[in-house]
């Protein structure tokens, strides 16, 4: 990176915009699928998870980027894991003390954040090779890319599976049940998360032909 490069140069902006679509961590790189499956039954946990990943990924990416010249390459994966785990525990402890309700919401996902492949993937592929600012942007971009998929999946699963959005009974309010509509219980079950992600990938590839593998 030349010294004169602007903070939001074209290249840096791409760090944020690419992971949203053409280099999306979930739909293109197919990382972090486990958590996309586990916590997208409702919108609220999905949003909490997205925010937690955002914090952990951007900070971990910066920390690793700052240490990248000091880390012995043979134990670099362990170092990355320790950094992630430390951050996750710190965040969890602070939430438990000051925003207890959020921490209860998050409790089950703490382990999932540590094992989220996106974070490890970004630290290994980007943080280890780039400066702190770029790493921070890369962390943000990938978190957003992860977040929107998560929230989109959760939106459809909660709406079709439970008839609510963020716990608010939308379908009951508009009186759909009186017309004989029933919730689709299958949407609550894990397989439908994969199918929903699959549909998103399908739509994305129809729109963006570059992503389709040549035969």
């Amino acid at each position, binding site marked *: 990176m030349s010294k004169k490069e602007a903070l939001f140069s074209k290249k840096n902006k791409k760090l944020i915009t690419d992971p949203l679509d053409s280099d999306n961590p979930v739909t293109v790189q197919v990382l972090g699928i486990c958590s996309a499956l586990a916590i997208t039954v409702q919108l609220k946990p999905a949003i909490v998870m997205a925010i937690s990943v955002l914090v952990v990924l951007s900070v971990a990416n910066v920390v690793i980027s700052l240490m990248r010249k000091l*880390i012995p390459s043979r134990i670099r994966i362990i170092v990355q894991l320790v950094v992630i785990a430390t951050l996750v525990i710190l965040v969890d402890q602070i939430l438990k003390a000051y925003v207890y309700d959020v921490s209860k919401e998050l409790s089950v996902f703490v382990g999932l954040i540590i094992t989220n492949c996106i974070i490890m993937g970004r630290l290994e592929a980007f943080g280890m090779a780039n400066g702190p600012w770029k790493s921070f942007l890369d962390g943000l971009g990938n978190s957003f890319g992860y977040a929107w998929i998560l929230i989109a999946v959760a939106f459809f699963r909660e709406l079709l599976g439970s008839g609510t959005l963020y716990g608010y009974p939308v379908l009951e309010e508009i009186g759909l049940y009186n017309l004989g509509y029933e919730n689709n219980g299958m949407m609550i079950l894990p397989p439908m998360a994969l199918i929903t992600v699959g549909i998103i990938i399908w739509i994305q590839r129809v729109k963006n032909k570059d992503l389709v593998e040549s035969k």
Partner: protein
Amino acid sequence: MDVNKNSYTFGFAAIMVIVVAVILSGTSIILKDAQYSNVELEKKQNILRSVGVNVNRDQAAIEYPVYIKEELVLNHLGEIINNLSAFDVDLSKEVKKSIVEDDENIPLEERTSLLPLYISEVEGETKYIIPLRGKGLWGPIWGFISFNADLNTVFAAVFDHKAETPGLGAEINTSLFQDVFQGKTIFEKGEFVSIFVQKGGSNGDIHKVDGISGGTITSDGVTDMLNERLKRYLPYFRLMEDNKEEKEVSAAMQAVNIDEKRDTISNIGKRIVD
């Protein structure tokens, strides 16, 4: 500096571990009090919710002494152990204890699993609150269930969990699941049957509640927890029942005596009139 030398790798790992340990234990010590008070307040909040009193966490501390009158600790014979408070009993440890043979050399508190029991008064009626703890799919589940004075009919129940699957097993902490416990009974013709969380629906059975679709293992966990915990309070229930009968008998005896006295007085009156 060669970052790939063995000595450097070891040094780096050692320093990293120490730094991380210091950071984490430091945070833990600093935040401990705030976290503990949150947990304690939540427990009070849950106990209050189990007798139908819904307050937020900050109010829980104020409302708790208003509603909760007694915090008893029982032994496995249903006898009250003095100078112990139900609130201080750590149920996660107690559930692991099994009742040891009656060895007089060991103090009672150590060979019996302590059974906490809260007695509450809501709108002039006595409610008995029994804390629960058991296993869900991913981790512990717990709750409080309150009974009417007949020690049979459920007044209300609350459940919570550490790590059940959101949207599935985790639904046990929603009112949708908890409210159906109200009015269920745990005895059938004097026999203890507990309450079952039934896969496929309760179909109006007085001892069953609806299970959660996709949350069968958590539902079964709730069933096991209710059965295992409530069973241990049976000696106490029996003692209470006996006491009640004694009271009723003595009350009846008194009534008879009073009647007899009235009888003689009116007879005397009659005779005088005669």
